[in-house]
């Protein structure tokens, strides 16, 4: 709850009090009044008298008709003043204290369990079990008792952190068949799975027989995102079990909206659920199902002081089910939100009666079953959850809370903690709750959401025979004030109050919507009769009450609606505005500005003339400015119950779907496409024919096929031949092995004749490569096909190895070969200083450059980077020729360099055919050996392609014709 408006540190809130005192010259103990006593309303005078006399104002004192709830508040306040010892007259300080505590860092959340030791204490008394669940997902199961018989689990405390991300299941079984097991002071706190949302299950009692669950406290954070199911079973066949001070607080799954199920009692027999507190935040976004079953066949169960607060699903509109009683027999659901009904000061307040739902009304989604209620009494009140917004800035409401909380309980309770989580003794807290009665319901709410008190959705069912006795709640809130114009039944309603009522949100209950329980609807009802004597000392008056009493009762809702309460069995009469309230209305045009304006207008704002623009005090001047966060009279969250009811089967289906989706990240191997058998056979046949045709001539050494005649040598081959034949003995020739091992068969066959011719002429070979496999291929080629030369066997050639860098390496080598390829000394001699490299200073010093490559890009790099360096700038006619031995596949892209003028490539040998043509008339070597296989293989390939093309083409034509004929 946010009480900033009441506790603005920047505002000197005491000013108005000071002014009040100064004006009235009222001091403690002075009940004689002041000069303005005549203007002081009677109620105020009486209050002052009562306070001076230290006599609580109660009904009947000084003839002031003070409501019981107010008198109780006074009593409690006096008690708290005595105990606290502070300045009891300044409720704002208390509010500040309360806020300070609110803003203070919250305790670890498990303070009440902080005394748990890590080791397990097996003693029955003070049994402690502290278990830290491993973080990895896994199931957690704890079974205590089994058949415990008369076991006692006094002061049982359990604290466990269930799996986090993985979201394993959590199961806790206490008691089993506990017989007369006692679970006194049972405390359970467990954080169930977080993200993944494992299931949570807690079974207490089983067949508990006459088990007692005194001071049972349960707090659990159910799975969050994953939205697993939450299940809590207390009692089972509880028979005469007692659930005294039962408190349950659970946050059901959040986003994912897992199901929430709470079963109390089962067959509770004569179970008693005294001071039953249940607070649950049902799934929100996802709208998981929420189910609460109390009693079942409760027989003569009693649900005294039953408190239920739940925030039903919001956005997604999950199902909400609340079953109270079932076959309740003579069950009693005295939903006393405060002290006993007899002392209920609010009993006589003309609260709007809630309409009766009837016997068998069920919620469509959000089910409230009151069937076979028998003679059950359902005295309850449930304001519309969406109407009351404590956190959003219902200043009136908050103010009321604050004033009512004062002096209640031993110590101010943390507003955001459940009672049993506070540092104070839970029992004491519970007592305070008992004392505070209905006020404790708001203390139970740890984090009131925008629903705020809206979450205080006590499910109610209309009594069959009696109208509702609206017991204390937040009386002001429970009495929606209709500010839009005067109520039809309250002609005496002041205009300002009517205006406020128009802008007031709706409260109350309406049965307009079919099937919609009245408790979930809201209707505005004007507060007409609010006894002025019910107000306390003006010093303690909250803002809402002091500034404009009726205005303070206005809810945050801005949509005015006329109340249309129809309670079965009777009407709820509108409350009439008391005279003192009417007199308090600040009027701008009054001569004295009204008592309220005099009293309330602090000097600070006396001349400011600030007009309030928001909230119920809109249009008034000189009012305390509302804090932004309090003045946010936002729309309440619609409580959409929808038509969706999730059954267990559907939940199972959801789980199955999640399992299916969870496996999406697992890669599924792609199945290879299978070919038809005829196609597979055709493939194998083609392979066999080609292999046979190619391998057979090589194996038998056949040379029977025709060989091109010498005169048919192409120009590029002739040029290459002439250049090789012009090499003089001892001249260095650079040979670059730039092909891949896969095409070594073709290129070796194409180049073996040329290299053999070069070596035969006495050329000194210098090997280089810009490919990592180049040096290996060069060694293999020379050792395999040129080993008959002494030059090769004696290693008279020089292998400069691999030069990395690609085109950059070629450019660098062409510019400065010595610096690009630094060679290690061999026998103390630098290879660059020995034959054949001793004459190489630049690349032009080579007699010839031969590039053997299968890649057109590599050939182009050599032409672009190296060939320009081969031309002597002084004499362009003197240039080092470059010959290329290339694969047949690269010929189209390399030939243009040969056909240019001037030629960038002096000679070109392309493929096996070029090699064979080169070898013709010189020395028939490897190319000639491969020629028969090459030629026959080419012929067979042509035959296969032609025949296959003709077959498939004709078949396609015939198929198309058949289709055309068929369509016709």
């Amino acid at each position, binding site marked *: 709850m946010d009480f900033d408006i009441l506790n603005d540190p920047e505002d000197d809130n005491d000013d108005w009090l000071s002014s009040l005192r100064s004006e009235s010259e009222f001091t403690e103990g002075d009940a004689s009044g002041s000069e303005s006593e005549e203007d002081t309303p009677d109620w105020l005078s009486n209050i002052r008298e009562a306070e001076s006399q230290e006599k609580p104002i109660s009904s009947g004192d000084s003839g002031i008709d003070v409501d019981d709830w107010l008198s109780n508040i006074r009593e409690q306040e006096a008690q708290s003043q005595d105990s606290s010892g502070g300045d009891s007259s300044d409720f704002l300080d208390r509010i500040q204290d309360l806020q300070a505590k609110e803003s203070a860092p919250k305790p670890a959340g498990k303070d009440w369990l902080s005394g748990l030791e890590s080791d397990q204490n097996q003693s029955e008394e003070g049994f402690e079990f502290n278990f830290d669940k491993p973080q990895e997902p896994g199931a957690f199961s704890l079974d205590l008792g089994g058949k415990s018989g008369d076991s006692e689990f006094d002061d049982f405390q359990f604290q466990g952190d269930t799996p986090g991300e993985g979201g394993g299941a959590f199961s806790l079984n206490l008691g089993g068949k506990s017989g007369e097991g006692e679970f006194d002071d049972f405390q359970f706190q467990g954080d169930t799975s977080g993200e993944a949302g494992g299931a949570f299950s807690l079974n207490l009692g089983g067949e508990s027989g006459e088990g007692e669950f005194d001071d049972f406290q349960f707090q659990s954070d159910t799975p969050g995102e994953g939205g697993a199911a939450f299940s809590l079973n207390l009692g089972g066949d509880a028979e005469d079990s007692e659930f005294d001070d039962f408190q349950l607080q659970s946050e059901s799954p959040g986003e994912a909206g897992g199901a929430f199920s709470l079963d109390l009692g089962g067959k509770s027999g004569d179970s008693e659920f005294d001071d039953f507190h249940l607070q649950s935040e049902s799934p929100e976004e996802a709208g998981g199902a929420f189910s609460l079953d109390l009693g079942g066949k409760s027989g003569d169960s009693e649900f005294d002081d039953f408190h239920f607060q739940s925030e039903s699903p919001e956005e997604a509109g999950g199902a909400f089910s609340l079953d109270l009683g079932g076959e309740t027999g003579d069950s009693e659901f005295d939903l006393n939100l405060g002290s006993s009904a007899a002392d209920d000061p609010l009993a006589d307040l003309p609260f709007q009666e809630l309409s009766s739902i009837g016997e068998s009304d069920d919620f469509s989604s959000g089910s409230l079953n009151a069937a076979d209620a028998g003679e059950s009494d359902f005295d309850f009140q449930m304001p519309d959850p969406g109407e009351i917004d404590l956190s959003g800035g219902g200043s009136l409401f908050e103010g009321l809370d604050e004033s009512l909380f004062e002096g209640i309980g031993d110590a101010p309770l943390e507003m955001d903690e459940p009672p049993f989580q506070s540092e104070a003794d839970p029992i004491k807290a519970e007592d305070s709750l008992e004392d505070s009665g209905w006020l404790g319901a708001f203390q139970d709410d740890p984090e009131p959401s925008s629903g705020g008190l809206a979450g205080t959705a006590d499910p109610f069912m209309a009594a069959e025979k009696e109208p509702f006795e609206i017991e204390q709640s937040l009386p002001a809130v429970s009495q929606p004030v209709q500010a839009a114009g005067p109520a039809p039944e309250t002609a005496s309603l002041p205009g300002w109050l009517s205006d406020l009522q128009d802008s007031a949100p709706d409260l109350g209950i309406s049965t307009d919507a079919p099937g919609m329980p009245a408790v979930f609807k809201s209707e505005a009802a004007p507060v007409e009769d609010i006894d002025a004597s019910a107000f306390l000392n003006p010093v303690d008056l909250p803002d809402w009450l002091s500034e404009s009493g009726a205005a303070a009762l206005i809810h945050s809702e801005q949509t005015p609606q006329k109340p249309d309460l129809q309670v079965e069995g009777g009407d709820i009469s509108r409350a009439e505005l008391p005279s003192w309230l009417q007199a308090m209305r600040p009027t701008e045009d009054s001569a004295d500005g009204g008592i309220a304006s005099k009293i309330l207008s602090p000097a600070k704002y006396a001349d400011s003339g600030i007009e309030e623009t928001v909230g119920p005090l809109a249009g008034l001047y000189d009012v305390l400015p509302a804090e932004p966060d309090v003045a946010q009279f936002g729309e309440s969250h619609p409580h959409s119950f929808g038509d969706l009811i999730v059954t267990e089967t559907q939940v199972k289906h959801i789980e199955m779907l999640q399992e299916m989706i969870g496996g999406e990240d697992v890669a599924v191997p792609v199945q290879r496409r299978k070919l038809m058998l005829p196609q597979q056979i055709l493939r194998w046949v083609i392979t066999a024919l080609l292999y046979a045709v190619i391998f057979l001539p090589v194996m038998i050494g056949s040379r029977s096929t025709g060989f091109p005649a010498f005169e048919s040598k192409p120009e590029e081959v002739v040029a290459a031949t002439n250049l090789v034949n012009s090499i003089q003995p001892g001249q260095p020739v650079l040979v670059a092995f730039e092909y891949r091992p896969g095409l070594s068969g073709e290129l070796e066959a194409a180049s073996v004749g040329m290299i053999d011719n070069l070596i035969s002429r006495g050329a000194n070979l210098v090997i280089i490569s810009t490919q990592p496999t180049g040096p290996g291929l060069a060694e293999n080629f020379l050792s395999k096909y040129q080993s008959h030369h002494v030059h090769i066997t004696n290693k008279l050639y020089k292998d400069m190895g691999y*030069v990395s860098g690609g085109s950059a390496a070629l450019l660098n080598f062409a510019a400065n070969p010595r610096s690009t390829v630094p060679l290690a000394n061999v026998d103390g001699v630098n290879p660059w200083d020995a034959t054949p490299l001793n004459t190489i200073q630049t690349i032009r010093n080579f007699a010839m450059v031969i590039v053997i490559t299968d890649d057109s890009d590599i050939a182009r790099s050599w032409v672009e980077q190296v060939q320009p360096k081969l031309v002597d700038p002084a004499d362009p006619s003197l240039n080092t020729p470059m010959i290329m031995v290339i694969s047949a596949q690269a010929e189209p892209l390399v030939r243009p360099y040969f056909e240019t003028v001037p030629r960038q490539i002096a000679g070109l040998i392309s493929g096996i055919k070029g090699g064979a043509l080169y070898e013709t008339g010189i020395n028939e070597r490897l190319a000639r050996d491969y020629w028969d296989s090459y030629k026959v293989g080419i012929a067979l390939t042509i035959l296969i392609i032609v025949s296959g093309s003709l077959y498939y083409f004709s078949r396609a034509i015939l198929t198309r014709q058949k289709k055309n004929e068929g369509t016709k």
Partner: protein
Amino acid sequence: MLKNLISHFKHSPISTFVAIASGVIVLATYILPLESLRSLILSWVVIASAAALLVGAVNLLSVHINKLSTTTGNSLYSSSLIISMILTFTVAFLPGNVDQWIFRYVQIPVESSLMAVLAVTLTYAAARLLGRRTDIYSIIFVASLILTLISSGGFIGGGFTWLKTMAGAGGRGIIIGVGLGTVTTGLRVLLGSDRPYSG
């Protein structure tokens, strides 16, 4: 941390500045008499390329090692690769020509066999081409393929010289286009529009 550092520098303006500056300097050396500077920069490229090759080999090894440790399925290929790499690397330090033996009797035959299978596959695909796609372009392709094979086979002497001329013409066009694309890419890198080094 190292990956973050590398990623930071990859995307930082420093890498862009270095790339542009290097390209401009090398380009300037063609205009200005700064051949020594160009040789110096190119020598750096040679060393950096060798280092990049080594890094690539190490990365390949690490990738497959990680694959072995994480993959629950078939990891036969990764294990074969790792074993081959380690074995070849180790053999290279041994005396003799053991590495040459591996190269001659393992690598060359394996790659040659793959190319041989490719030849068979292409022949089969060419035979079924018209069955899959019966249009004019497929017919033209098959016809040109057959003519090229006839010319390459030496069945006809000089009768298909015009075919080589046509192929040469097409090749010229491709080379011109490649040259223009290379110039454009170089300008984009020099201007910083294209940053292939940023990853």
